[in-house]
């Protein structure tokens, strides 16, 4: 586990090791720590939008004593055929998960970039923090229990704009092909029922209707329904 102070020290170290500017998006627990919604996280998840920045940070991490974990199949099994494979760098009792353009089938769209709330500069490393709405959306792509805890905590602490979440899930279906509103319905329904998260009933119903409509459209068109939930 790593707290925000240690995380930022590592970012500073990476920033000084970088020869040129590299920018990335902080997602998950790492982003939550910047918002003060979490005190520590298991791993630091960063998404890069260009291969150059991705490689620069990978090299910088290597130079400060991190090593690439070779066997990442159990964690990122679905990336077997993906073009932009993530990497895991381990060291100093910390793990960095570096993604390129997408996280478990969820593409970093221009609307996600527009919603960025904070930008932190650590020398040459620029870390942009995605919005709480997008953190929730990214958490819905996984099946881990702790991700549900995190999402419930975000819903409790922030005034979540549900319209943004619904719109982005539909947008992800358009650009990625996955049936995101279905995942989202499943995820939010569980949060409401099992974690007692305060999600308006009409939002759940709205997402359910959108999900049903997309499923019917996909089935009618005879297209393959991609399911990449892990």
């Amino acid at each position, binding site marked *: 586990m790593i707290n925000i102070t240690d995380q930022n020290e590592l970012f500073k170290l990476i920033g000084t090791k970088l020869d040129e500017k590299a920018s990335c998006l902080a997602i998950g627990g790492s982003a939550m720590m910047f918002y003060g*919604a979490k005190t520590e996280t298991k791993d630091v998840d960063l998404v890069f939008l260009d291969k150059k920045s991705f490689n620069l940070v990978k090299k910088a991490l290597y130079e400060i004593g991190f090593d690439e974990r070779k066997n990442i199949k159990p964690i990122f099994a679905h990336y077997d055929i993906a073009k932009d494979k993530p990497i895991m760098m381990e060291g100093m009792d910390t793990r960095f998960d570096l993604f390129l353009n997408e996280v478990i089938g969820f593409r970093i769209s221009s609307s996600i970039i527009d919603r*960025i*709330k904070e*930008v*932190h*500069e*650590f020398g040459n490393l620029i870390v942009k923090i995605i919005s709480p709405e997008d953190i929730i959306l990214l958490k819905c792509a996984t099946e881990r229990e702790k991700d549900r805890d995190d999402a419930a905590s975000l819903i409790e602490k*922030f005034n979540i704009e549900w319209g943004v979440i619904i719109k982005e899930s539909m947008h992800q279906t358009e650009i990625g092909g996955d049936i995101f509103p279905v995942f989202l319905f499943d995820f939010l329904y569980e949060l409401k029922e099992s974690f007692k998260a305060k999600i308006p009933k009409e939002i759940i119903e709205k997402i359910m209707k959108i999900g049903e409509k997309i499923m019917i459209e996909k089935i009618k068109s005879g297209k393959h329904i991609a399911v990449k939930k892990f």
Partner: protein
Amino acid sequence: MDLQNIAKSLEGLQTVDTIAKRLGISRRTAINLIWILRKKGLVETGYGKRKIRLYRIRAIKKPDIGFKGLYDIINENSKVKVFAKEQHRIHGHKLTIEEAIIRAIEEEDFRTILTALGLFNKIKDWSRLLKFAKKEKLTRKVGALYDVARTAIKVKRIDKRIRKALLKGTVGDKYIVKKIRSADFKDIEKEWNVFIPFNKADLGVYKE
């Protein structure tokens, strides 16, 4: 409603009036509420036009990390303010006025550069400005914007040696803001060999 829920319902930018309206309370009570929320570290105050106070309310207290970023420096030191879409924080070192000017130029954004003109009045170390300008190859743009700022704001006189050094800089991209040039400040454009994006009316904001 407890304080946490009140802060959650007010999250974002508010004025005293919007808070009073949303919660159905008097202006006086809204001011008291802001005071309590500020004590809890949930409120940051800024100023809009005509010195109207704008309160940025957060639902949870954020960790106070890093130093002020470009937009905070501009808003603190320039008469003309800029609205930042995102919060910018610098880690590892404090952003100086001189560095902030260079960063504002690097943004290539009309409003950011216009508001940053006000920073020329707060420069303490001209050689530091030259150092940053040389590093980012922006010497001519810095010199030209200094001259533009002088037409509208009372600005400290630049050291002659620094001015000469700024003039010696190479001419790269002539545009300060991409594809924007005005019909004014032709003499400054000619001297520095760059295109000024502002016209005289744009600088009127400094005289309001």
